[in-house]
Protein backbone atom coordinates (compact mmCIF):
# COMPACT_ATOMS: atom_id res chain seq x y z
CA UNK A 1 0.00 0.00 0.00
CA UNK A 2 2.61 2.52 1.03
CA UNK A 3 5.32 3.23 -1.48
CA UNK A 4 8.77 4.12 -0.17
CA UNK A 5 8.94 7.70 -1.47
CA UNK A 6 9.86 9.84 1.48
CA UNK A 7 8.01 13.14 1.28
CA UNK A 8 8.57 14.73 4.66
CA UNK A 9 11.45 14.59 7.08
CA UNK A 10 11.31 16.51 10.32
CA UNK A 11 14.06 16.20 12.88
CA UNK A 12 14.02 17.44 16.44
CA UNK A 13 11.33 20.06 15.91
CA UNK A 14 10.66 22.34 18.86
CA UNK A 15 8.25 25.19 19.14
CA UNK A 16 7.54 27.75 21.79
CA UNK A 17 4.69 30.23 21.97
CA UNK A 18 4.62 33.04 24.48
CA UNK A 19 7.33 31.33 26.59
CA UNK A 20 5.30 28.11 26.69
CA UNK A 21 6.91 24.96 25.27
CA UNK A 22 4.42 23.39 22.88
CA UNK A 23 6.46 20.43 21.70
CA UNK A 24 10.13 19.53 21.46
CA UNK A 25 12.30 16.74 20.14
CA UNK A 26 9.64 15.90 17.61
CA UNK A 27 10.83 13.79 14.69
CA UNK A 28 8.73 12.51 11.87
CA UNK A 29 9.38 10.75 8.57
CA UNK A 30 6.36 10.49 6.31
CA UNK A 31 6.11 8.68 2.97
CA UNK A 32 3.76 8.86 0.04
CA UNK A 33 0.75 6.65 0.66
CA UNK A 34 0.55 7.34 4.36
CA UNK A 35 -2.13 8.91 6.50
CA UNK A 36 -0.93 10.54 9.71
CA UNK A 37 -3.16 11.52 12.56
CA UNK A 38 -1.77 14.02 15.02
CA UNK A 39 -3.33 13.57 18.44
CA UNK A 40 -2.89 15.30 21.75
CA UNK A 41 -4.81 17.21 24.38
CA UNK A 42 -6.12 20.71 23.71
CA UNK A 43 -3.29 23.20 23.67
CA UNK A 44 -0.63 20.58 22.89
CA UNK A 45 0.35 22.42 19.70
CA UNK A 46 -1.40 20.37 17.03
CA UNK A 47 -2.56 23.39 15.03
CA UNK A 48 0.84 25.05 15.42
CA UNK A 49 2.59 21.90 14.18
CA UNK A 50 0.37 21.84 11.07
CA UNK A 51 1.08 25.54 10.47
CA UNK A 52 4.82 24.85 10.81
CA UNK A 53 4.56 21.98 8.30
CA UNK A 54 2.57 24.17 5.88
CA UNK A 55 5.17 26.94 6.07
CA UNK A 56 2.85 29.43 7.74
CA UNK A 57 4.68 29.56 11.04
CA UNK A 58 8.43 29.88 10.93
CA UNK A 59 9.43 30.43 14.56
CA UNK A 60 10.54 26.88 15.30
CA UNK A 61 13.80 25.09 15.99
CA UNK A 62 14.92 21.91 14.29
CA UNK A 63 15.02 20.75 10.71
CA UNK A 64 12.17 20.35 8.30
CA UNK A 65 12.49 19.08 4.73
CA UNK A 66 9.87 18.46 2.10
CA UNK A 67 11.11 16.23 -0.71
CA UNK A 68 9.02 17.71 -3.48
CA UNK A 69 10.05 19.30 -6.75
CA UNK A 70 9.72 23.02 -7.42
CA UNK A 71 7.53 25.27 -5.31
CA UNK A 72 6.36 23.27 -2.31
CA UNK A 73 3.06 25.16 -2.29
CA UNK A 74 2.09 23.65 -5.65
CA UNK A 75 1.87 20.27 -3.97
CA UNK A 76 0.06 21.43 -0.83
CA UNK A 77 -3.58 21.54 0.08
CA UNK A 78 -3.91 23.19 3.47
CA UNK A 79 -7.26 23.49 5.19
CA UNK A 80 -6.82 25.22 8.51
CA UNK A 81 -9.05 25.47 11.56
CA UNK A 82 -10.67 28.50 9.94
CA UNK A 83 -12.58 27.81 6.73
CA UNK A 84 -10.48 30.06 4.47
CA UNK A 85 -13.71 31.28 2.95
CA UNK A 86 -15.46 34.61 3.32
CA UNK A 87 -18.82 34.35 5.06
CA UNK A 88 -20.42 36.94 2.75
CA UNK A 89 -19.78 34.81 -0.34
CA UNK A 90 -21.30 31.54 -1.47
CA UNK A 91 -19.42 28.21 -1.44
CA UNK A 92 -19.22 28.42 -5.23
CA UNK A 93 -17.70 31.93 -5.27
CA UNK A 94 -15.22 31.00 -2.56
CA UNK A 95 -14.16 27.82 -4.36
CA UNK A 96 -13.75 29.64 -7.65
CA UNK A 97 -11.38 32.13 -6.05
CA UNK A 98 -9.34 29.45 -4.29
CA UNK A 99 -9.19 27.40 -7.50
CA UNK A 100 -7.93 30.40 -9.43
CA UNK A 101 -5.13 30.90 -6.89
CA UNK A 102 -4.10 27.28 -7.33
CA UNK A 103 -4.15 27.47 -11.13
CA UNK A 104 -7.24 25.25 -11.28
CA UNK A 105 -9.32 27.62 -13.41
CA UNK A 106 -10.70 24.70 -15.41
CA UNK A 107 -11.66 22.62 -12.39
CA UNK A 108 -15.40 22.10 -12.13
CA UNK A 109 -16.54 22.92 -8.59
CA UNK A 110 -20.01 21.39 -8.99
CA UNK A 111 -19.10 17.69 -8.60
CA UNK A 112 -16.85 18.60 -5.66
CA UNK A 113 -19.67 20.46 -3.93
CA UNK A 114 -21.98 17.52 -4.58
CA UNK A 115 -19.41 15.10 -3.12
CA UNK A 116 -19.11 17.30 -0.05
CA UNK A 117 -22.88 17.08 0.38
CA UNK A 118 -23.65 20.69 -0.47
CA UNK A 119 -25.89 20.14 -3.46
CA UNK A 120 -28.55 22.85 -3.37
CA UNK A 121 -26.45 25.14 -1.15
CA UNK A 122 -23.93 26.28 -3.78
CA UNK A 123 -25.47 29.75 -4.02
CA UNK A 124 -26.23 30.35 -0.35
CA UNK A 125 -23.84 32.74 1.42
CA UNK A 126 -21.79 31.00 4.11
CA UNK A 127 -23.35 33.16 6.83
CA UNK A 128 -26.62 31.32 6.26
CA UNK A 129 -25.07 27.85 6.46
CA UNK A 130 -24.60 25.75 9.59
CA UNK A 131 -21.16 25.11 11.11
CA UNK A 132 -21.08 21.62 9.58
CA UNK A 133 -22.03 22.93 6.16
CA UNK A 134 -19.28 25.57 6.32
CA UNK A 135 -16.80 22.82 7.13
CA UNK A 136 -18.12 20.79 4.20
CA UNK A 137 -17.70 23.82 1.92
CA UNK A 138 -14.00 24.07 2.73
CA UNK A 139 -13.61 20.28 2.51
CA UNK A 140 -15.09 20.31 -1.01
CA UNK A 141 -11.53 21.18 -2.03
CA UNK A 142 -10.57 17.56 -1.31
CA UNK A 143 -12.33 16.68 -4.56
CA UNK A 144 -10.55 19.39 -6.58
CA UNK A 145 -6.98 19.66 -7.70
CA UNK A 146 -4.10 17.25 -7.70
CA UNK A 147 -2.09 18.29 -4.65
CA UNK A 148 -0.03 15.47 -3.22
CA UNK A 149 0.17 16.62 0.38
CA UNK A 150 -2.94 17.34 2.39
CA UNK A 151 -2.66 19.13 5.70
CA UNK A 152 -6.03 19.27 7.42
CA UNK A 153 -6.81 20.79 10.79
CA UNK A 154 -9.79 19.09 12.45
CA UNK A 155 -11.50 18.07 9.18
CA UNK A 156 -14.26 16.25 11.05
CA UNK A 157 -15.23 19.11 13.37
CA UNK A 158 -18.99 19.78 13.27
CA UNK A 159 -19.50 17.28 10.41
CA UNK A 160 -22.27 14.67 10.84
CA UNK A 161 -21.70 10.90 10.89
CA UNK A 162 -22.47 10.40 7.20
CA UNK A 163 -20.13 13.24 6.30
CA UNK A 164 -17.36 11.82 8.49
CA UNK A 165 -17.65 8.49 6.67
CA UNK A 166 -17.43 10.22 3.27
CA UNK A 167 -14.37 12.22 4.27
CA UNK A 168 -12.69 9.16 5.84
CA UNK A 169 -13.09 7.31 2.55
CA UNK A 170 -11.71 10.28 0.65
CA UNK A 171 -8.63 10.51 2.90
CA UNK A 172 -7.97 6.77 2.60
CA UNK A 173 -8.38 6.96 -1.20
CA UNK A 174 -5.93 9.84 -1.42
CA UNK A 175 -3.32 7.96 0.60
CA UNK A 176 -3.90 4.81 -1.49
CA UNK A 177 -3.34 6.86 -4.65
CA UNK A 178 0.12 7.86 -3.43
CA UNK A 179 -0.72 11.02 -1.51
CA UNK A 180 0.20 12.03 2.01
CA UNK A 181 -2.41 13.11 4.53
CA UNK A 182 -1.56 14.80 7.81
CA UNK A 183 -4.50 15.75 9.96
CA UNK A 184 -5.47 16.51 13.50
CA UNK A 185 -8.54 14.93 14.98
CA UNK A 186 -9.71 12.87 17.88
CA UNK A 187 -11.05 10.46 15.31
CA UNK A 188 -9.03 7.67 13.65
CA UNK A 189 -9.44 6.81 9.96
CA UNK A 190 -9.34 3.00 9.56
CA UNK A 191 -6.45 0.80 10.58
CA UNK A 192 -3.89 2.22 8.16
CA UNK A 193 -3.53 5.44 10.09
CA UNK A 194 -0.29 6.26 11.86
CA UNK A 195 -0.50 8.27 15.03
CA UNK A 196 1.77 11.04 16.22
CA UNK A 197 1.18 11.95 19.84
CA UNK A 198 1.87 15.44 21.10
CA UNK A 199 1.86 16.69 24.63
CA UNK A 200 2.96 15.35 27.99
Amino acid at each position, binding site marked *: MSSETCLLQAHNLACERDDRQLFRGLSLTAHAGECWQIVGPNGAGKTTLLRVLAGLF*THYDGELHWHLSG*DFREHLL*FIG*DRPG*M*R*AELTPLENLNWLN*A*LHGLDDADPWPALASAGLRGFEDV*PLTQLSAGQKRRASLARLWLGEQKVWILDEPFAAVDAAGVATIETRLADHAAAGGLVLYTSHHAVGSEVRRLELGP
Partner: protein
Amino acid sequence: MTGFAPTLARELRLGLCARAEIINPLFFFLMVVTLFPLGLDPEPDLLRRIGPGVVWVAALLAVMLSLDQLFRRDYESGALEQLLVAPVALYFPVLARLLGHWLLTGLPLVVLSPVLGGLFALPAAVLDELALSLLLGTPILTVVGAIGAALTTGLGRGGMLLALLVLPLYVPVLIFGAGVVGRSLAGYDVDAVFALLGALLALAVSLGPLAVAAGLRISSGD
Protein backbone atom coordinates in the same frame (compact mmCIF):
# COMPACT_ATOMS: atom_id res chain seq x y z
CA MET B 1 -0.62 38.05 -13.35
CA THR B 2 -1.98 34.91 -11.68
CA GLY B 3 -4.77 35.72 -9.32
CA PHE B 4 -5.29 39.35 -10.42
CA ALA B 5 -8.64 39.16 -12.22
CA PRO B 6 -10.34 36.66 -9.86
CA THR B 7 -9.23 38.66 -6.81
CA LEU B 8 -10.47 41.92 -8.33
CA ALA B 9 -13.84 40.34 -9.15
CA ARG B 10 -14.05 38.95 -5.62
CA GLU B 11 -13.22 42.32 -4.08
CA LEU B 12 -15.97 44.05 -6.07
CA ARG B 13 -18.41 41.29 -5.16
CA LEU B 14 -17.51 41.67 -1.48
CA GLY B 15 -18.03 45.42 -1.82
CA LEU B 16 -21.57 44.80 -3.00
CA CYS B 17 -22.16 42.54 0.02
CA ALA B 18 -20.97 45.19 2.49
CA ARG B 19 -22.46 48.35 1.04
CA ALA B 20 -22.39 50.17 4.38
CA GLU B 21 -18.60 49.90 4.52
CA ILE B 22 -18.42 51.53 1.11
CA ILE B 23 -21.04 54.22 1.68
CA ASN B 24 -20.11 55.25 5.23
CA PRO B 25 -16.69 56.73 4.42
CA LEU B 26 -18.32 58.59 1.54
CA PHE B 27 -20.91 60.15 3.87
CA PHE B 28 -18.17 60.90 6.36
CA PHE B 29 -16.34 62.78 3.60
CA LEU B 30 -19.47 64.77 2.68
CA MET B 31 -20.29 65.60 6.31
CA VAL B 32 -16.80 66.76 7.28
CA VAL B 33 -16.52 68.95 4.21
CA THR B 34 -19.95 70.54 4.69
CA LEU B 35 -19.28 71.22 8.39
CA PHE B 36 -16.50 73.67 7.62
CA PRO B 37 -18.60 76.35 5.88
CA LEU B 38 -21.13 75.98 8.70
CA GLY B 39 -18.58 76.29 11.48
CA LEU B 40 -16.49 79.05 9.94
CA ASP B 41 -17.39 82.48 8.71
CA PRO B 42 -19.08 81.81 5.33
CA GLU B 43 -17.00 84.46 3.65
CA PRO B 44 -16.32 83.43 -0.01
CA ASP B 45 -12.71 84.63 0.10
CA LEU B 46 -11.93 82.61 3.20
CA LEU B 47 -13.75 79.54 1.91
CA ARG B 48 -11.92 79.74 -1.38
CA ARG B 49 -8.59 79.77 0.42
CA ILE B 50 -9.31 76.84 2.77
CA GLY B 51 -11.51 74.83 0.35
CA PRO B 52 -8.88 72.67 -1.37
CA GLY B 53 -7.18 71.85 1.92
CA VAL B 54 -10.45 70.92 3.62
CA VAL B 55 -11.54 68.66 0.77
CA TRP B 56 -8.14 66.99 0.75
CA VAL B 57 -7.97 66.44 4.52
CA ALA B 58 -11.51 65.03 4.53
CA ALA B 59 -10.68 62.70 1.63
CA LEU B 60 -7.53 61.57 3.42
CA LEU B 61 -9.45 60.75 6.62
CA ALA B 62 -12.21 59.00 4.68
CA VAL B 63 -9.68 56.77 2.89
CA MET B 64 -7.98 55.96 6.18
CA LEU B 65 -11.27 55.07 7.87
CA SER B 66 -12.19 52.71 5.05
CA LEU B 67 -8.88 50.86 5.34
CA ASP B 68 -9.15 49.55 8.89
CA GLN B 69 -11.30 46.63 7.78
CA LEU B 70 -9.42 45.99 4.52
CA PHE B 71 -7.72 42.73 5.52
CA ARG B 72 -9.40 41.96 8.85
CA ARG B 73 -12.15 39.67 7.59
CA ASP B 74 -9.72 37.82 5.33
CA TYR B 75 -7.49 37.33 8.35
CA GLU B 76 -10.29 36.12 10.61
CA SER B 77 -11.83 33.81 8.02
CA GLY B 78 -8.51 32.15 7.17
CA ALA B 79 -8.67 33.41 3.56
CA LEU B 80 -5.41 35.25 4.17
CA GLU B 81 -3.52 32.07 5.11
CA GLN B 82 -5.01 30.40 2.04
CA LEU B 83 -3.49 33.22 -0.02
CA LEU B 84 -0.12 32.60 1.67
CA VAL B 85 -0.10 28.84 1.01
CA ALA B 86 -1.26 29.24 -2.59
CA PRO B 87 1.45 28.86 -5.26
CA VAL B 88 1.20 32.47 -6.45
CA ALA B 89 3.29 35.58 -5.97
CA LEU B 90 1.39 37.77 -3.51
CA TYR B 91 2.01 40.90 -5.59
CA PHE B 92 -0.86 40.53 -8.06
CA PRO B 93 -3.64 39.44 -5.69
CA VAL B 94 -2.65 42.28 -3.35
CA LEU B 95 -2.58 44.79 -6.22
CA ALA B 96 -6.04 43.58 -7.28
CA ARG B 97 -7.39 44.02 -3.76
CA LEU B 98 -6.04 47.56 -3.57
CA LEU B 99 -7.39 48.46 -7.00
CA GLY B 100 -10.81 47.05 -6.09
CA HIS B 101 -10.82 48.90 -2.81
CA TRP B 102 -9.86 52.16 -4.49
CA LEU B 103 -12.55 51.76 -7.16
CA LEU B 104 -15.15 51.37 -4.41
CA THR B 105 -13.95 53.99 -1.92
CA GLY B 106 -11.45 56.35 -3.58
CA LEU B 107 -13.04 56.90 -6.97
CA PRO B 108 -16.39 58.10 -5.52
CA LEU B 109 -14.48 60.77 -3.55
CA VAL B 110 -12.87 61.97 -6.78
CA VAL B 111 -16.25 62.10 -8.53
CA LEU B 112 -17.86 64.07 -5.70
CA SER B 113 -15.02 66.52 -5.20
CA PRO B 114 -16.02 69.10 -7.88
CA VAL B 115 -19.45 69.44 -6.23
CA LEU B 116 -17.84 70.09 -2.87
CA GLY B 117 -15.36 72.47 -4.45
CA GLY B 118 -18.35 74.48 -5.65
CA LEU B 119 -19.56 74.63 -2.05
CA PHE B 120 -16.33 76.46 -1.21
CA ALA B 121 -16.87 79.06 -3.93
CA LEU B 122 -13.97 77.68 -5.98
CA PRO B 123 -14.07 78.98 -9.57
CA ALA B 124 -15.17 76.39 -12.14
CA ALA B 125 -11.76 76.55 -13.80
CA VAL B 126 -9.93 74.92 -10.87
CA LEU B 127 -12.55 72.23 -10.09
CA ASP B 128 -11.00 69.95 -12.73
CA GLU B 129 -7.62 70.40 -11.11
CA LEU B 130 -9.04 69.54 -7.68
CA ALA B 131 -10.57 66.34 -9.08
CA LEU B 132 -7.38 65.45 -10.96
CA SER B 133 -5.24 65.98 -7.88
CA LEU B 134 -7.52 63.59 -5.97
CA LEU B 135 -7.52 61.12 -8.87
CA LEU B 136 -3.73 60.93 -8.63
CA GLY B 137 -3.61 61.25 -4.85
CA THR B 138 -6.27 58.92 -3.45
CA PRO B 139 -4.68 55.73 -4.88
CA ILE B 140 -1.44 56.70 -3.11
CA LEU B 141 -3.41 57.14 0.12
CA THR B 142 -5.00 53.72 -0.37
CA VAL B 143 -1.67 51.97 -0.98
CA VAL B 144 0.22 53.66 1.87
CA GLY B 145 -2.70 53.11 4.25
CA ALA B 146 -2.91 49.47 3.21
CA ILE B 147 0.67 48.93 4.39
CA GLY B 148 -0.41 50.07 7.85
CA ALA B 149 -3.62 48.03 7.62
CA ALA B 150 -1.62 44.89 6.73
CA LEU B 151 0.66 45.37 9.73
CA THR B 152 -2.18 45.99 12.20
CA THR B 153 -4.50 43.25 10.89
CA GLY B 154 -3.38 40.65 13.42
CA LEU B 155 -4.05 42.97 16.34
CA GLY B 156 -7.53 42.90 17.80
CA ARG B 157 -8.29 46.55 17.20
CA GLY B 158 -5.92 48.47 15.02
CA GLY B 159 -7.99 51.62 14.37
CA MET B 160 -6.07 54.24 16.32
CA LEU B 161 -2.69 52.58 15.78
CA LEU B 162 -3.36 52.56 12.04
CA ALA B 163 -4.02 56.32 12.15
CA LEU B 164 -0.82 56.97 14.09
CA LEU B 165 1.22 54.83 11.70
CA VAL B 166 -0.20 56.15 8.50
CA LEU B 167 -1.02 59.84 8.99
CA PRO B 168 2.63 61.01 9.07
CA LEU B 169 3.22 59.15 5.80
CA TYR B 170 0.29 60.99 4.23
CA VAL B 171 1.93 64.39 4.73
CA PRO B 172 3.84 64.67 1.43
CA VAL B 173 0.81 63.59 -0.58
CA LEU B 174 -1.34 66.14 1.26
CA ILE B 175 1.14 68.96 0.68
CA PHE B 176 1.37 68.34 -3.06
CA GLY B 177 -2.27 67.44 -3.52
CA ALA B 178 -3.82 70.31 -1.62
CA GLY B 179 -1.19 72.69 -2.98
CA VAL B 180 -2.28 72.16 -6.59
CA VAL B 181 -5.44 74.25 -6.45
CA GLY B 182 -3.92 76.98 -4.27
CA ARG B 183 -1.08 77.41 -6.77
CA SER B 184 -3.46 77.38 -9.66
CA LEU B 185 -5.60 80.12 -8.03
CA ALA B 186 -2.46 82.18 -7.48
CA GLY B 187 -1.77 81.95 -11.21
CA TYR B 188 1.17 79.51 -11.14
CA ASP B 189 1.65 76.62 -13.53
CA VAL B 190 0.75 73.35 -11.79
CA ASP B 191 2.03 70.78 -14.30
CA ALA B 192 5.12 70.16 -12.21
CA VAL B 193 3.03 69.36 -9.11
CA PHE B 194 0.90 66.94 -11.11
CA ALA B 195 4.10 65.32 -12.39
CA LEU B 196 5.31 64.89 -8.81
CA LEU B 197 1.98 63.38 -7.74
CA GLY B 198 2.15 61.06 -10.75
CA ALA B 199 5.66 59.98 -9.78
CA LEU B 200 4.51 59.25 -6.22
CA LEU B 201 1.61 57.25 -7.62
CA ALA B 202 3.92 55.20 -9.86
CA LEU B 203 6.16 54.51 -6.88
CA ALA B 204 3.21 53.53 -4.66
CA VAL B 205 1.65 51.19 -7.22
CA SER B 206 4.91 49.47 -8.15
CA LEU B 207 6.44 49.01 -4.70
CA GLY B 208 3.45 49.36 -2.35
CA PRO B 209 1.99 45.88 -2.94
CA LEU B 210 5.35 44.32 -1.98
CA ALA B 211 5.28 46.15 1.35
CA VAL B 212 1.63 45.19 1.89
CA ALA B 213 2.47 41.54 1.13
CA ALA B 214 5.34 41.63 3.63
CA GLY B 215 3.01 43.14 6.24
CA LEU B 216 0.44 40.41 5.64
CA ARG B 217 3.09 37.71 6.10
CA ILE B 218 4.14 39.27 9.41
CA SER B 219 0.54 39.54 10.60
CA SER B 220 -0.27 35.99 9.62
CA GLY B 221 2.85 34.31 10.96
CA ASP B 222 2.45 35.15 14.64
